[in-house]
């Protein structure tokens, strides 16, 4: 794959069970860190009404949107049933504690 990886910071810069924002020219990306130190990146917009997912409560591999409490799966970007919707995902990799991100969204079913 010819993705361009950009180093954005270290794992410990993101609070565990929390998120940080990455500003880009096309809008914010939310970078999440789970309780097990897994890192995920989603467009910082809930598929429901655009709420900033980075501000939600992270639990397991999900985040609860702060506006209307939709649950979004961090690994797929999909809303947890019975809600239906999808937030765009971005590829993330971690090497030696450094988090890198690619700005091309992954294609996923139902992505908009």
């Amino acid at each position, binding site marked *: 794959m010819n993705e361009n990886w*950009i180093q*954005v*910071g270290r794992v410990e*810069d*993101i*609070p*565990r*069970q*929390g998120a*940080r*924002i*990455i*500003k*880009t*020219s096309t809008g*914010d990306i939310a*970078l999440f860190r*789970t*309780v*097990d130190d897994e890192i995920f990146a989603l467009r910082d917009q809930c598929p429901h*009404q655009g*709420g*900033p997912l980075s*501000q*939600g*409560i*992270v*639990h*397991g591999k*999900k985040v*609860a949107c*702060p*506006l209307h*409490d939709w*649950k979004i799966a961090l690994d797929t970007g999909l809303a947890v049933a*019975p809600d239906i919707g999808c937030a765009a995902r971005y590829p993330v990799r971690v090497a030696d504690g450094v988090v890198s991100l690619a*700005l091309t969204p992954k294609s996923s079913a139902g992505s908009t």
Partner: protein
Amino acid sequence: MEKMKLVLVGNGMAGMRTLEELLRAAPDLYDITVFGDEPQPNYNRIMLSPVLAGEQTIEQIILNPRDWYAERGITLYTGKRIVKIDRKRRTVTADDGTAADYDRLLLATGSKPFVLPVPGANLAGVVGFRDIADVAAMIAAAGQYQNAVVIGGGLLGLEAANGLKLRGMDVSVVHIGDWLLDRQLDEPAARLLQQNLEAKGLKFLLQKQTQEIIGEQRVQSVRFKDGSEIPADLVVMAVGIRPNTQLAESAGLHCNRGIVVNDTLQTYDPRIYAVGECVSHRGIAYGLVAPLFEQARVCANHLAEHGVARYQGSMTSTKLKVTGIDLFSAGNFMGGEGLEEIVFQDVGRGAYKKLVLKDDQLAGAVLYGDTLDGAWYFELMREHTDVSDFRDRLLFGRSHLGDSGHGDEKSRIMALPDKAEICGCNGVCKGDIIKAIREHKLFTLDEVRAHTKASASCGSCTGLVETILAATAGGDYSVAPSKKPLCGCTEYSHDEIRDAIRQNNLKTLPDVLRFMNWKTPDGCAKCRPALNYYLLCAWPTEYQDDAQSRYINERAHGNIQKDGSFSVVPRMWGGLTNPKELRAIADVAEKFKVAEVKVTGAQRIDLFGVNKADLPALWKDLSAAGFVSGHAYGKATRTVKTCVGSQWCRFGTQDSTGLGVKLEKMAWGSWMPHKFKLAVSGCPRNCAEATIKDFGVVCVDSGYELHVGGNGGIKVRVTDLLTKVESEAQVLEFCAAFIQFYREQAHYLERTAPWVERIGLAHIKAKVVEDAANRRTLAERFAISQKPAQVDPWKERAGGEQKHEFTPLVALA
């Protein structure tokens, strides 16, 4: 590895519900085989009455079509009755010889109609009312014959009679008791019911004992003990049901009016579980769906090898599924020694209510005609609420239930058009709810909330949604678990968790999750904020707050708005301000390009549209001008609203503004189960609206009235008078004690209004007013917890704390 084998005997609602719960909890644990003796896959047995009445079709009441089984790899045998369990070899065998091995066996064999042991009971034309075959026989008879006799004036009998009447038959109901539904209703309510049913054309023969059913091959008439006789082409036996324990007994399992199970739904053979109507749990066999589904949930938990759930019995209520007739009964509704009754009767309107009280608690209820408050009465019974303080109003129901102009009668709700809006918060119409219930086979209020969001926000339409659910899915969905778990991550209730935290010295969130066997690795968005609060309340001087378990508003110390910006409310003590403060606010508003400045309902100034990244700098300026956080964003003590009082007002009796400032200085900064509002009015004209606050003071010439449990929100609730005191010092002490009692007792996200209704004002008075020593201890505990709490979070963050919360990780642009 080879999977374990699970065999379900009984393809009905309880057994299948258990499988559904099991598949959710442990989808790959078992190879599953299901045996059912009926030819259909699992259907909603409760809805046989509407099918008989022609209001629904059999297709509409199928719950799990054959595809459902196939998609999940479940082997389904329909029309095969298991006749033998070999517990040594662990196999079951059906009447046609089909056999299956098991590692775990689940018996859900249901119940059988009781057939009166009278001559002629086996004639053609004599049926029970239990399954689709019975209904088909009744519908066929209705097309051919005229006279139907239903033996039994209970729920099932009346529903059968109603259905046959609607199908054009001439129906007589024979009942041995003095009045109809004598196990569900008292006599006055039963008389009203009888009148209504007679108006529909049904005939009743009470105090009649059947002696013989007469006929050659097909039934021709029914003869009674008193010698009288009536013609009959169809006889429906609906005198009761008996747990179907034949198979279990033949296998040597201990049965006593049901297959005897323990609190984990296990029979005397540890490999064999049983759920549903065939079961006897602590001596009770349940016949309603809500307790059976609760059994299913617990049983699935154990089959999934989670091993934490317990079934501890249910309290049940009754509703009749005859369109146009509303009745509700629960508990001990007959009254008797040591019990008191409150009765309301309006024969002209066909309304009757009886409440039975025991020791200031509600012990039972019968409602006829208007049953919307049934759920509330049921809740009061379940919670053992002390009702002595609202006993005079109890009979009139929860007046704020079903507001938003929907009216108050169930029949009216069901008569509403599909377009009628039920849930104003989420814009959900009646048709949406019915469609979701039908399409997704929903059975519980929680499921309806998850799918439609109806009643999921403010909850004021809960009664309406329950009514629609009951009418669409069946009759008795008032779920009454013996306790309610905090969330899906645990089996434990709020109270159990709080007790465990204190008793076992649990001092961190991970400690609680570990100690209490949480089902999820790190909880969910519902339990984590609750646990964080409970820990903070229990260990005010030690607990290290967990920011990631707080909702964003409390993490960022502002109110998130729909566009992701925040609003900021500086604290103005008692609602007082001055030119210097106002100037500082104006400067901040201009400097940070605040989009809108608004005066709030609580007499404070709100600055809207602030970027999150600007918050610390904005707070720094406010802090320099002497402001602290107004906590307008938190589950916390909010503001104290005041009127001007005796200093200026010609009617003022006391210095309400000054007292408001003192109260706010005492109470600010405290984290609470929910938001907590205060007010002080200088005279009974009550300009500060103190009687719709969580804690309100109304000054009078001789002192101060203290009011609690008010709410001006979704459900307007006027406060209850806690007591009257004479000095400001007393106001402060009583207020501190009340706040602390609420902090320690209420469930997280429970406002004072529902809390006061749940535990009863009398209980609060006993702890806060009558017991002076306890009051002082509570007030002291509040003072201790306030020391670490009264640190301004804005100033801390303006000084650089929690910087990561307010700054992007990186800006790529």
